[in-house]
């Protein structure tokens, strides 16, 4: 899998979450995702960037165009050095929230992308990587 140049946004405010949405939208259009897939990916990115801000205490979002030889797509990495997630199965359950949200950010985003991976350690932080491929 080869990647184009990555673009990176530091997330430390509501406004940065808006910037993440806009960047992901721009790249999604550039790699020619379908309209529905653009919408799904931008929505997932919005959920995950908000988590980076709200639960992770801020962090970074990196957006990369990728190509695995057969298809092009977008790879996004959300990284923070926040408290981490102690019980991942629970956090991935629809409706589970520790923050008064709807508890759909993680579980819902996972449904909206093609690949979804979480790397988290209590006290160390959380990194979530997602990929969406062109059909």
């Amino acid at each position, binding site marked *: 899998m080869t990647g184009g140049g990555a673009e990176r946004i530091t997330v430390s405010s509501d406004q940065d979450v808006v910037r993440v949405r*806009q960047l992901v939208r721009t790249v999604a259009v550039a790699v020619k995702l379908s309209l529905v897939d653009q*919408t799904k990916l931008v929505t997932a990115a919005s959920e995950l960037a908000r988590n980076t801000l709200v639960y992770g205490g801020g962090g970074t979002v990196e957006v990369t165009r990728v190509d695995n030889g057969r298809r092009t797509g977008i790879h996004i990495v959300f990284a923070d050095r926040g408290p981490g997630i102690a019980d991942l199965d629970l956090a991935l359950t629809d409706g589970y929230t520790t923050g008064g949200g*709807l508890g759909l950010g993680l579980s819902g985003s996972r449904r909206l992308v093609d690949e979804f991976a979480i790397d988290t350690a209590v006290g160390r932080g959380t990194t979530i990587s997602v990929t969406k491929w062109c059909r």
Partner: protein
Amino acid sequence: MDRVPILKIGDILLVSIQIDMEDQVALQLQENLADRIVSSGCHGVIIDISALDIVDSFVGRTLATIASISRVLDAETVVVGMRPAVAITLVELGLSLPGIRTALNVELGMELLARGRYEDDDEGQDDADEPTVTAP
């Protein structure tokens, strides 16, 4: 931080969301709208989201909360103009917004409000005002 304008048209408050709202802007809208419902005595609210290219769980929840607050203040809310791709994504996200009435556009939303007001001025709305969390 931008504000979302609220227009009064007859007995209806029209909110047309034209920007990609920061979360704080959405919360602010919720408060401003509650104030305006009370100060104007309007019985209907139309929220036009045709300019929004996504609705995430935060905005979805805000819309549902606005609908609930309005109802408590004796006003009915209709969300209009949701794009097809947004509807598909919302459902897949797990948010089917059962407490929210929808219509295709502002005009149909107004019709819906006019009819509703006429027909069932009295009736105890059903429960499901909160966004239901359901795995698709």
